[in-house]
């Protein structure tokens, strides 16, 4: 036992001596060297794993952030797209209004633009609903115009029912609609009536009237409702047989495609004679 103790003390002494010598020669620390030999693989593997671990989490967090960022950017794109569409729509409306304003300069009456809010398409009543009513100054029997492809302004109907915030417009294709019109080329007058579909009749044309296919029909201004010179449509056919032996009848196609409209214009014009 004593031997063993003295051997251990000797070994410790030698170890301390060697350590001192090595420290003196290399300036190193043998304990650190020894710890390094044992623990370096552990450190390396630990570092490697923690590096990977940290990288994984940082990547994950980065991805999460990226996803959030992506989502945010997508939302931003959507928002900008919707805003762009909104502005495009506004621009379209503005262009339409500008065109209409230029085209309608000869019409001296004040005009109100209205948006079509509903097209019932009822076969028994050709009406449209607009978003302007009595609070905007509308009243019954006012003429309603629309832009025909940005090239002309044409009559499309008449206000028939006025509520505070909305109104009904009777289209010129409704059988109840009637207007005093004339053929632009010859000046022959007749009464325009709706046919129910997308066509109108032109009745009570004089038998001697020289009416041809393609002739332009405009309002005559004699009915006290519509101002003179408003474009309506063109003749598509003329009946060869006289009606009641005295009058010719022609078929008129309105120049405006009524069901593709989104904006109409109401002329603030009251009937000139009380009806």
């Amino acid at each position, binding site marked *: 036992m004593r031997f063993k103790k003295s051997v251990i003390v000797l070994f410790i002494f030698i170890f301390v001596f060697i350590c001192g010598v090595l420290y003196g020669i290399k300036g190193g620390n043998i304990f650190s060297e020894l710890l390094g030999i044992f623990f370096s693989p552990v450190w390396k593997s630990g570092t490697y794993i923690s590096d990977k671990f940290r990288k994984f989490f940082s990547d994950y967090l980065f991805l999460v952030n990226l996803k959030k960022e992506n989502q945010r950017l997508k939302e931003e794109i959507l928002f900008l797209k919707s805003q762009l569409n909104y502005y495009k729509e506004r621009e379209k409306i503005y262009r339409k209004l500008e065109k209409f304003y230029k085209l309608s300069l000869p019409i001296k009456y004040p005009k109100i633009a209205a948006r079509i809010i*509903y*097209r*019932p*398409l*009822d*076969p*028994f*009543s050709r*009406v449209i609903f607009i978003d302007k009513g009595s609070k905007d100054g509308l009243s019954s029997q006012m003429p309603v115009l629309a832009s025909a492809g940005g090239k002309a302004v044409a009559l499309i109907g008449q206000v*028939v*029912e006025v509520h505070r915030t909305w109104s*009904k417009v*009777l289209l010129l294709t409704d*059988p*109840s609609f*009637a207007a005093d019109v004339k053929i632009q080329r010859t000046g022959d007058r007749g009464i325009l*009536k709706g*046919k*129910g*579909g997308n066509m109108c*009749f032109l009745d009570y044309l004089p038998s001697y009237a020289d009416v041809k296919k393609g002739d332009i029909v405009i309002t005559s201004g004699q009915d006290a409702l519509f101002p003179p010179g408003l474009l309506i449509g063109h003749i598509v056919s003329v009946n060869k047989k006289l009606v009641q032996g005295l009058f010719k009848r022609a078929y008129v196609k309105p120049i405006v495609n009524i*069901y593709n409209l989104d904006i109409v214009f109401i002329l603030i014009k009251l009937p000139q004679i009380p009806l």
Partner: protein
Amino acid sequence: MTFKELILFFLPFSILIYAFKIFLTNSILFYPGDILFALAIASISLISFNKVCYIYLFFTGLLRGLDLINIEILMGLCFVGIGFLWEHFERYFEIKNFESRLMLWFIILVIYEFVNLIILLIFKLRTEIEFFIIINLLMHSFLNILLTYIWILFFYYLIKKLYLK
């Protein structure tokens, strides 16, 4: 039909169908027939008829009349009249099965279209009645009857599934 059923199911359903009709006409520009009348007829075919039904019919008639000019209340009354006819036809002819209902729907629909034409000709149309106008109205009526009949069948099955589960 009880008042609670009217408020909680039938009136909201009518408004929903009206909104659907607005969407349909405004998006595809096609007249889908008299949807509200079809809904009213399909509804009263499935429920026990009482006085509350008349309120429901009047309301759907008002909604239907919005598409026409100045005859909303008249359309409401027309719907009530059709409901009155339905109630009595059902009782007198002892309508119980589906086949006889099909026939009765057709008769009611034709009567309704006829009344519609009368209302239109007397109250609305301010022009002389001509051959072309009559032909036009008859063709529209035929299309209307056909489309509305299909809608009645559709609503009959829909309400049966939703309401009489």
